[in-house]
Structure formats: C-alpha cells, structure tokens
C-alpha cells in the first residue's frame, strides 16, 4: 500500500478509507513541519500549532481535493495559506515587537547531514539568511529549492505568473548570495 501514489492514497481517503490519510500523513509530516517551521522563522511552538491545524484541515477538507492537481501542491498550498494568515495576524506583529522571535533560536535538527563544524555553520548561515527574506521570497525559495516544485506549479499554488515566480526566485537567490558571500566565495 505504501507504493501507491499520493493521489491514489488521497482518493482512497476521499472514498472512506482512512488508511490513505494515515500513509500520507506519515509520508509528508517531516517535510511539512520543516516547511512551516521555516516559513514562520523558526518559531517552534507556533509551528506545532499550525502543523496540527493544517493536517486537521486536510482531514476535514478531503472533499475539496480534486484529483486533477498533485496532492503535494494541494497540501503545501494549504500550509502556505495558514502560515501567511498567521504571519499577517496582529498576534505575530506583537510577538515581533516583544522580540520573542529571537529568544527561541534554532533547535537541533532531527537529521543532521554532517558532523563537520564548518558545514554546520554554513547551514546555520543559510537558515538565518532564509528567515530574513520577505515572506514572498521565502515561500518561493522554500517551495522551489527545498521542496522542488517547478515555477509552473508554484505559480498555480500562489496564483502568480510562472515568469514572476522565476524572477522573484532569482532576486531572492541574489539576496541570499549577498548574505552568504563569505561562504560561497570560500568554496571557489
């Protein structure tokens, strides 16, 4: 059953077999949480709340899923909308003012790629640089570079022209490059 495509599992779930939901949940939970966590600028507690909301909404909103679109696009669109709503809310503005964003810091990643200290620093620099990007740039970078969606797919998800997605992605990368210059030049 684990070899079924996302879309097949979602259709299973839509037609009453909850096992479909369970497998999809397991398949995406780390990726989705990581996405939400980064979208919110590494606020773990809020990320946990939104992560729960997104999955509960996916469960309750199964009838809104159309098999013509990829399940992953649908899932990440829901997650992205939740994140943006939250970021726009007054609550978030207030938490920025009181500086609680800075106090939480970065938790230890669950799957460290390497134990090399320099490598870890580079990744931390990228994490930091990502959280300083504007919300629009950040979501495009996360969806494109981390999640691997195409400009076309992101365009559909964000209701944006794919050409605009591409140029925004380019500008976002330029910003990141500027912030990461010491790291990138060190590699030459």
């Amino acid at each position, binding site marked *: 059953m684990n070899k079924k495509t996302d879309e097949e599992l979602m259709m299973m779930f839509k037609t009453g077999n*909850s096992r479909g*939901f*369970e497998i999809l*949940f397991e398949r995406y*939970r*780390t*990726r989705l*949480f*990581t996405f939400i*966590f980064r979208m919110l600028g590494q606020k773990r507690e809020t*990320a*946990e709340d939104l*992560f*729960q909301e997104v*999955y*509960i909404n996916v*469960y309750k909103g199964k009838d809104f899923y159309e098999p013509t679109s990829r399940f992953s696009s649908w899932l990440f669109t829901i997650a992205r909308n939740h994140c943006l709503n939250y970021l726009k809310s007054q609550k978030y503005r207030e938490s920025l003012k009181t500086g609680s964003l800075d106090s939480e810091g970065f*938790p230890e*990643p*669950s*799957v*460290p*790629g*390497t134990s090399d200290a320099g*490598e870890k620093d*580079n*990744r931390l620099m*990228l*994490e930091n640089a990502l959280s300083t990007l504007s919300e629009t740039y950040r979501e495009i970078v996360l969806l*494109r*570079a*981390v999640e691997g969606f*195409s*400009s076309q797919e992101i365009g559909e998800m964000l209701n944006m022209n794919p050409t605009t997605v*591409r*140029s925004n*992605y*380019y500008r976002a*990368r330029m910003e*990141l*490059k500027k912030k*990461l210059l010491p*790291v*990138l*030049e060190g*590699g*030459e």
Partner: protein
Amino acid sequence: MECEEYRELFPEYLKEELDVHTADRMHQHIETCPECRKAFRESAELDTLFARLPVYEPSPESVLHIRAETIYKELKPEKRTDFGEVMDIEELAEFFRVTVDIIEEYISDIPCFELGGKLLFRKKRIEQWMEDRERDFGFQKLNAEVDRILSSQDAAHSWNDGK
C-alpha cells in the same frame, strides 16, 4: 539573451529542466562570460547548501493531537448501552466488553436458547446469571479465605503440639 536572463535560468539549468536548445546556449554562454561563470558557480554552491539543509520533526504531542482529532475521533466505536431484551452472541460480547471467543468458551455455562440456528440470550436471564456468578465468586473468595485461616491455625496448633 542578456546575462541577467541567463542567470535567471541557472536554477532550471542546474536541475536539468531546460530544453536542449536553451541548455546548449547556456553552456556556451557560461564558457565565454567570466562574470556569469562566477555567478553560476555561486548558484551551484547555493543549491548544494540547500540540499544539505536539515529537516525538523514535529513533536510527538502534535502527532498524537492530529491522530486524536482526525481518525480516532471519527472512527472510535461508540459504547453501546441500548441493548434489547434479546441479544445475539456479538451483542452479548459487546455487552460484556469481551471477544466473541470468550463467550464461546463459556457458552455451556451461559443461559441461552437457539432459534433458526442462531444463539440468543435474554437480557433478564443474563443479569440473573451474572448475579449467580457474583454470588458464587463471592463464596469462592470466602471459602478460600476460611481455608487460609484454618490452615494457618493448623500450622500454629501443630507447632504447639510439637512443643
């Protein structure tokens, strides 16, 4: 194409998403333009960094909360209390919160009757049977306790006798 246009396509080029013709032109341009070559190298390094970004796990509490609010909430069996005057074997098992296998194991003991090949149980008789069992169980416990007291007395007396 201008340098800027080529640079916008670096991510696609790196992911091998460009058509052959554009990829060819890109290759030639990177070969001949030192500025773009440098920018391309940086772009590739940035992609390498992205690929090495860690992932983060949600807390077990979040996972539990989602399960509780979705599958469990929708599918958990409701506890029945509305049993009729006559129950079949499945209903009786549910009534006692045991499996049908357990009922079958005790079937010779449980008051029941057969109708059309089906075993049926009258709720009144079952309640009476339960009372009997309670009483028997109570007697058993009492007997066991009396036996225990008697044997401890026996032991004490034989000790005294021996002295």
